[in-house]
């Protein structure tokens, strides 16, 4: 086992309030709830396994869909991910959160599968899909010159009467959002799914994807803008 592995002893099973610590005494990346969940998993609690799968399955499917072409293959990738989680659970050292660890396995498997199947359009998912300086919003929507250069020329139309509930009730809007998310390249899709769909904190998203916070927000803004633009078009 790695020298800086966490001292994950049986004691956590008897005293689940303990958050595992590394050998240097630093707190691990696990939350208290995750520490308790791992202890139950290692005791063979099938309910705990269901809990784990229920918590993360949706996010994993959506993320996998960014790397492979169809839902069926994404399901297989996620199934492989869960099998790898089961196989490796006893070796998990708790240096990152459980979610970070599971998502890391998924990304590795999904990329591998995407490359093997060559389902991706010119492998663009693994590279920045656009230049870092490209703007999310079409620059032609802003004044190009004159006194008001940089201010809106074609501003967004107001959605004043829209609430989250109304938007969710609109099949047209929901379909447009789902389609827009589905169409995102993997680099944009993974940040949107983790941050907005699953509500993962920005810092943890950076850790999972091994990117900087600046990079996260460049990607996230592009992804959100594409989804917003899709709703804008759907609502006319």
């Amino acid at each position, binding site marked *: 086992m790695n020298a800086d592995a966490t001292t994950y002893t049986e004691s956590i099973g008897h005293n689940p309030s303990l958050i595992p610590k590394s050998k240097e005494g630093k707190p691990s990346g696990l939350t208290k709830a995750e520490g308790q969940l791992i202890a139950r*998993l*290692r*005791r*063979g*609690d*099938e309910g705990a*396994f*269901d809990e784990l*799968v*229920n918590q993360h*399955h949706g996010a994993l*499917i959506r993320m996998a869909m960014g790397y492979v072409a169809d*839902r069926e293959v994404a*399901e297989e990738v996620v*199934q492989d991910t*869960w*099998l790898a989680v*089961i*196989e490796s*659970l006893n070796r998990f050292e708790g240096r990152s959160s459980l979610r970070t660890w599971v998502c890391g396995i998924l990304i590795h498997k999904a990329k591998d599968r995407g490359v093997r199947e060559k389902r991706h359009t010119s492998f663009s998912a693994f590279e920045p899909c656009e230049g870092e300086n490209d*703007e*999310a*919003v079409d*620059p032609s929507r*802003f004044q190009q010159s004159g*006194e*008001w*250069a*940089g*201010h*809106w020329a074609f*501003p*967004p*139309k*107001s*959605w004043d009467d*829209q609430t*989250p509930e109304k*938007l*969710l009730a609109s099949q047209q*809007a*929901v379909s447009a*959002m789902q389609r827009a*998310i589905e169409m995102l390249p993997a680099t944009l899709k993974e940040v949107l799914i983790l*941050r*907005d*769909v*699953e*509500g993962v904190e*920005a810092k943890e998203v950076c850790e999972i994807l091994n990117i900087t*916070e600046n990079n996260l*927000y460049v990607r*996230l*803004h592009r992804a*959100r*803008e594409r*989804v*917003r633009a899709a*709703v*804008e078009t759907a609502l006319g």
Partner: protein
Amino acid sequence: MKDHPSQWIHSGLTCRDVVVQASAYLDDQLPFFTTFRVGMHVASCADCRTYMKQMALVCEVAARLPKPYRSPISRLSLRQHFARSYPPSL
């Protein structure tokens, strides 16, 4: 000076500058002074306010989209694999 909404309060930012930072602003990830300047601009520019509201709405709805379901067959085989790998401790 012309009475343009974006210039009612002089944040020193254009709408284009504000839009680029919209996601980081909504997630409260900008440095204090930048947040202040973006906030000043948004407070005085109806179009940027509309844009920010739409982005916030999209984020909120994204979190509430229907979740993909899990196939019962894959769930069963995973449970069986888990039970074999981690027999319940007595």
